[in-house]
């Protein structure tokens, strides 16, 4: 009240009221900071990103250099994670593979989320026939269990890393569409949206300027958790030989190579898998923490 009066009386010395969105973000950040697991996850993610950017400059060997004399060597001081069937250094390949994994994760979720968010908002905002059509299409996509939808898409497009990204992106669209539709439905009926309509704001403006920022929390949480699923799915497709093609140091493909040498070289399959687990784990615990921090029910 006093702030308002001040604004009216003397606009020049007016104290700008704090942006409520920033305030909420601050509360969420403080809560996130208290959540140890989430912070560990967050730091792991930052570390992985740093490794993806800087790591390749510091690897002891080039990822594709073959050294057939030293093939299938167990871990040693020279080769920390051992060597594969071409004598390539597995540690170096894993470091180079980090950027591929993160690229798949971020890029496909960004694509899937963009499409899913737009479809979900349109569905929830307009309702009626558009809603029915969009949601029935999403139901159909969800009728393909697990990895199967991505598999079907890659089988059609042909095996390659980019096709895996497209497939995994499509695979994550319905999840976003459903969540966003629900959130949009709950926001749509609020008074400030009616006010915007009365002021003559266009639907586009209402959707992207006024609804989207208010439903951002569940989208951010889902995006974080989706990266985890995406990394797993993409690695699975590469493992099946439908994703990254040799000699690319993609972890799923490396695992698939390792499978053929399990009787004499356990480490070829072991280390890439450990890395997948760590990356997925980091996104999972960070996502869980974000969900707790951004959950409006849990606000102090």
């Amino acid at each position, binding site marked *: 009240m006093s702030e308002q009066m001040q604004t009216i009386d003397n606009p020049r010395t007016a104290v700008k009221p704090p942006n409520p969105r920033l305030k909420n973000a601050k509360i969420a950040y403080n809560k996130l900071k208290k959540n140890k697991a989430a912070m560990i996850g967050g730091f792991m993610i930052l570390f992985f990103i740093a490794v993806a950017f800087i790591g390749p400059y510091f690897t002891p060997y080039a990822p594709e250099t073959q050294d057939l004399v030293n093939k299938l060597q167990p871990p040693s001081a020279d080769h920390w994670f051992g060597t594969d069937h071409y004598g390539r250094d597995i540690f170096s390949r894993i470091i180079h593979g980090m950027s591929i994994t993160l690229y798949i994760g971020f890029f496909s979720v960004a694509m899937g989320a963009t499409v899913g968010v737009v479809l979900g908002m349109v569905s929830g905002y307009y309702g009626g026939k558009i809603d029915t059509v969009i949601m029935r299409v999403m139901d159909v996509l969800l*009728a393909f269990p*697990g990895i199967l939808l991505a598999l079907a898409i*890659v089988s059609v497009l042909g095996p390659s890393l980019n096709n895996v990204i497209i497939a995994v992106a499509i695979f994550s669209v319905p999840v976003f569409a459903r969540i966003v539709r629900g959130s949009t439905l709950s926001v749509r009926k609020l008074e400030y949206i009616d006010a915007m309509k009365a002021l003559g704001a266009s639907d586009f403006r209402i959707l992207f300027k006024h609804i989207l920022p208010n439903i951002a929390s569940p989208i951010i949480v889902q995006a974080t958790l989706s990266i985890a699923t995406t990394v797993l799915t993409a690695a699975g497709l590469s493992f099946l030989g439908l994703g990254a093609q040799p000699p690319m140091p993609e972890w799923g493909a490396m695992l698939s190579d390792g499978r053929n040498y399990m009787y004499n070289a356990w480490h070829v399959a072991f280390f890439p898998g450990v890395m997948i687990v760590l990356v997925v784990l980091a996104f999972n615990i960070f996502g869980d923490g974000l969900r707790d921090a951004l959950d409006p029910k849990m606000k102090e």
Partner: protein
Amino acid sequence: MFKFIVRRLLQTIPVLIGVSILVFSLMHLIPGDPAVIMSGESAPEEQVENMRERLGLNDPLHVQYFNYVSNAVQGDLGSSIRSGRDVTDEIGGRFWVTVELAIYSTILSIFLGLIAGIVSATRQYSFADTALMIVALFGVSMPNFWLGLMLIQWFAIGIDLPSWVPFLEDTAWFKPSGWGELSQVILPVITLGTSGAAIIARMTRSSMLEVINQDYIRTARAKGVKERVVVYRHALKNALIPVVTVVGLQFGALLGGTVLTETVFAINGMGKLIIDSIQARDFPIVQGTILVVALLFVLVNMLVDIAYRFLNKRIDLE
């Protein structure tokens, strides 16, 4: 209830139509001429023409779709490009292998997941809770194909451990591949069931915690009801309601997961059939198998929804 079942049945129709359109389109979304791709790049023109005729690609699209669906309804999913056998026959025996694998894994994941979830929730913040939830977190983060490989490495091939490690000298107890014998079933079921168990454990825990903090549980405790009865009779029953939905979704995820598990353990189920056929560009089989798995999933989801409705009488009031 009867009305609900009928409505739920009717609701699946558009989904089924959508699924059939999508599966039918697979063949047409292949970049390039499917007839050329399936007869091989270097095949003579005549052979390509035969293939086109055989796949019915000369008909208008809607006629092709209509034929596909009407044949599929009669159990005719076309024939394999490679072997020439009916797709239905190719799927035949493999269907039960995959379903068995998915069911055993679901049972395992429900069993482990519920126990872990209940133990965790009833001893919140204890060592057991923390340990179980960390294990569960690894469970959801682990690629099942990697877990499968590691289990094979440890329990089917065996690893050289230092001689001072007791009991674990020779751990190659199971067979690394195949399906049927007990020694072939255990590892794939663990592989496939682990992530489901982890998800169910996490869900059960949070659902139990929510219920345990409610007034009627406090009332029960205040009345002097034994803790066991409170947990198992009062809390668990209501806590299980949301878990049912997760179990249904998990069964679907497991069905999809069979693709990887069957590949790792060389099990001749539908999952491996899909992969082998994708690599052989044998699209009628890819289409047929994907269709069957999706139908199975839609069916299971419907049953789960009905079960959910049955358990949760409160929905009826809405």
